């Protein structure tokens, strides 16, 4: 494995800081820098994702999508963000002001926390726990709290229905997401994110893991779409039923937070899919093809990771723009009657595969 290790850069920077200031100060400076970088990457990625989805959806729909602002409309989402930033935050009467203001922050904090643990590239891990996957799942489930609060505190019938739907939906679908991730954790034998990626050096899990890995991947894709409230599972904000669902009453940057978090959650679930099934930042290798593998190694690991995430997002976006929305009873029936039992069975199957060494 000759892929460039970003650890060289980060260690050099760390040593540089330590040479000019005490160790604690260096850590503080690094934390601040990482925080700023994260925020920057977070917002830029969100803007890119908005553009990405708008373009893809336009092409699915025989349209061109945004074309006016900048070449091919690439600056459109910057313009949109600027618009959201300068819009008035409307003060509503008869609402729970504190919870109303708190809700968007909970949503965005949840999505940022899980964003932070993604394996960006070789040596580009912000923090490497031995229970990284567990942390990621835990952090991402705070989001539902924000949505419930938003719906409740708005004192509006549409938002309340939207919040109740999303509560039921996100909690249900988290089970399947968790189960399929657990299946892969059993296969890898580790919960550390770096460990998971390293374990895929000789082949991505989706290839190595046999049938159970493929089943887990499919379940994960469906459940993740459900957990991020995207079509065909976009019931909490089903605009044709509930106008805008739980965020009907929000304006300005408060709405912007929900909007950003929604797109970033798409990136996060795609990132987790690429980490769990598609090798994280691992390049694509074919055993025996040395030349091909060497060329693949030249592509930086960051590009591999982001590229895979974009690919998974493409599939999820493809769903959304092809299918009609499901109904709440169908949604819950799909999870509790099909996905979860299959997921449980699949976990057992994977355990057997691991115990008897039936994988590659």
């Amino acid at each position, binding site marked *: 494995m000759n892929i460039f290790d970003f650890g060289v850069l980060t260690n050099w920077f760390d040593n540089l800081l330590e040479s000019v200031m005490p160790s604690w100060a260096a850590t503080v400076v690094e934390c601040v820098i990482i925080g700023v970088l994260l925020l920057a990457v977070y917002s830029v990625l969100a803007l890119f994702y908005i553009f990405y989805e708008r373009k893809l*959806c336009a092409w*699915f*729909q*025989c*349209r061109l999508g945004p074309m006016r602002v900048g070449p091919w409309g690439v600056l459109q989402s910057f313009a949109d963000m600027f618009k959201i930033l300068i819009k008035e935050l409307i003060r509503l009467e008869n609402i729970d002001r504190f919870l109303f203001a708190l809700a968007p922050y909970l949503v965005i904090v949840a999505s940022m926390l899980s964003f932070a643990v993604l394996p960006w590239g070789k040596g580009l891990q912000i923090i490497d726990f031995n229970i990284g996957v567990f942390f990621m799942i835990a952090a991402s489930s705070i989001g539902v709290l924000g949505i419930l609060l938003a719906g409740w505190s708005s004192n509006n*019938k*549409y938002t309340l*229905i939207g919040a109740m*739907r999303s509560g039921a939906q996100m909690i249900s679908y988290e089970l399947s997401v968790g189960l399929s991730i657990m299946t892969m954790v059993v296969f890898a034998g580790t919960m550390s994110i770096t460990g998971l990626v390293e374990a895929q050096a000789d082949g991505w899990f989706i290839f190595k893991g046999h049938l159970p890995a493929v089943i887990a991947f499919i379940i994960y894709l469906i459940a993740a779409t459900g957990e991020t409230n995207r*079509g*065909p599972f*976009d*019931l909490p904000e*089903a*605009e*044709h*039923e*509930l*106008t805008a669902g739980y965020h009907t009453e929000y304006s300005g940057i408060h709405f912007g937070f929900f909007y950003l978090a929604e797109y970033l959650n798409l990136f996060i679930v795609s990132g987790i899919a690429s980490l769990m099934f598609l090798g994280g930042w691992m390049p694509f290798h074919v055993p025996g093809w040395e030349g091909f593998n060497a060329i693949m190694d030249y592509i930086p690991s960051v590009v591999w990771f982001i590229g895979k995430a974009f690919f998974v997002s493409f599939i999820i976006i493809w769903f959304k*723009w*092809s*299918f*009609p*929305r*499901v*109904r*709440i*009873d*169908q949604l819950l029936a799909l999870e509790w009657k099909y996905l979860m039992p299959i997921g449980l069975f699949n976990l057992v199957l994977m355990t057997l595969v691991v115990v008897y060494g039936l994988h590659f």
Partner: protein
Amino acid sequence: MVDLKEKIGKLCPSATFEDGEVLRVSVAAGEWRALAEQLKNDADLNFDYLVAVIGVDWKESLGCIYELTSTATRAMLEVKVTTADRENPMLHSVSDLWKVALLQEREVFDFYGIVFIGHPDMRRLFLRNDWVGYPLRKDYDANPEINPIRLNLEENEDDSVTYVENENGEVEKKEYKLFEADDYVVNFGPQHPSTHGVMRLRTLIDGETVKRVVPVPGYIHRGIEKLCESHSYPQTLMYTDRLDYMSAHQNRHCLCLCIEKALGIEVPRRAQIIRVMMDELMRLSSHLLSYGCMTMDMGATTAFFYGFREREQILDIFDKTCGARMSLHYNVIGGVVADVHPDFIKDVRELCAIMPERLKEYHKLFTGNVIAQTRTKGVGVMTKAEAINYGITGPSARATGYSCDVRKHSPYSIYSELKFDEVLESAGDSFARYMVRMREIEQCVSLLEQLCDMLEREEGNEYCAPKVPKLIKLPVGHWFQQVEASRGAFGVYIESDGGKNPYRMHFNSPCLNLIGVVDLTCSNYKIADLITITASLDYVIPDIDR
């Protein structure tokens, strides 16, 4: 066929008859209720379909015209019921016999102040509750000081009233509440993405389940029928394009037919072919819009754009010939306003050529989808008997197996020469309604192909009758004409006193009846089904709020 005169004369000896295109029976207010029961239930008469309840003010008396049809024998009958009491006009309601009268009688009450005894919900339908007077009465005072533009919000009226006759023949007023204080009532509309216009559905829900729907129309009521009374006949034509704007041609065709019938004008054959072609293009565009909106409401946004892509092509055809895309103003009394554009036939043929392929795409994208199927099949079921009783026509009625195509049953213009099938489904659910529209698109394409051939062969080049008088005055009388618009049977009733303005002009819209079944079809389904069902009923708001 029974002799209606003899039969009704026996049932109601005091009735007077007036021969015409349709037999008109005049009965006194007191005898109407008994006669209505006989008309509905008598095996020989069997008038099970009440087409319209039309309020008229004859100055010396107020009253209603009931247009009745028997779906079995296709016999038609007009009943005129009058009351001389202008202060406190009262008639007996027939809303328990024909449910379609539930909304239509409310409309009459709204505009003429006639109270219907026994009607369960005697509130105004379109106007605000604080409106003073009854605008379609001839002695109505339109002084803006009496009814200023009110800037205050209208109070939510949960109080309803019903008038019941007790054993002594006295009428009692009973008030009751539409909703209880702790009912969870959600407003869908007037501003809502899925009501397709400013329409409000007050929906009582229990969790995700819809318990009851109370439609509140009237947000864009323009008083077209009132306006028509002060316009000359050619001027009234322009309002028809603004009723159901997705049936602009058919509506205008209907009004033109009615006036031409009254004047005895022969429309040149070329004009008739063009009119029917335009009608079918309009129907095609309307069904494409309906496909788009229904898929969109169910969350399949991409399908919406596919439907709109072909609709755009039709609008371009309209644009070339009529100079407009929405309010087309193409039919005039005696024919059409101008000959078709030289490219017209070529464009229509191109459209017909691509449609079969495009239909396959629609089916691939939506019809076959498992989510679409599970969400529409068995949802919002309406039976054939209910469809007839609620006066439903058009694709929504044909989905129940009820054959009601005006083009087949009382062909107008050149429809009798054309070969087409009346599309019928039997399930009566949202999927059947959707499929009727999709299959009607195929019929439209086949009709258009036949019509292209006819128009090419047609040697006459007159597109408008030459002898249409400059000042159109209809003789004294009354006429009723129906056509098959995109959403069902659209009717025009004209009553003339010989002047240059109509004395009374009524538009009988299919969509008003459609909102009458929203409660029936949506109760005990989920909120998401409410959207699916209303989308599959496919009503257009300006047609409700005339």
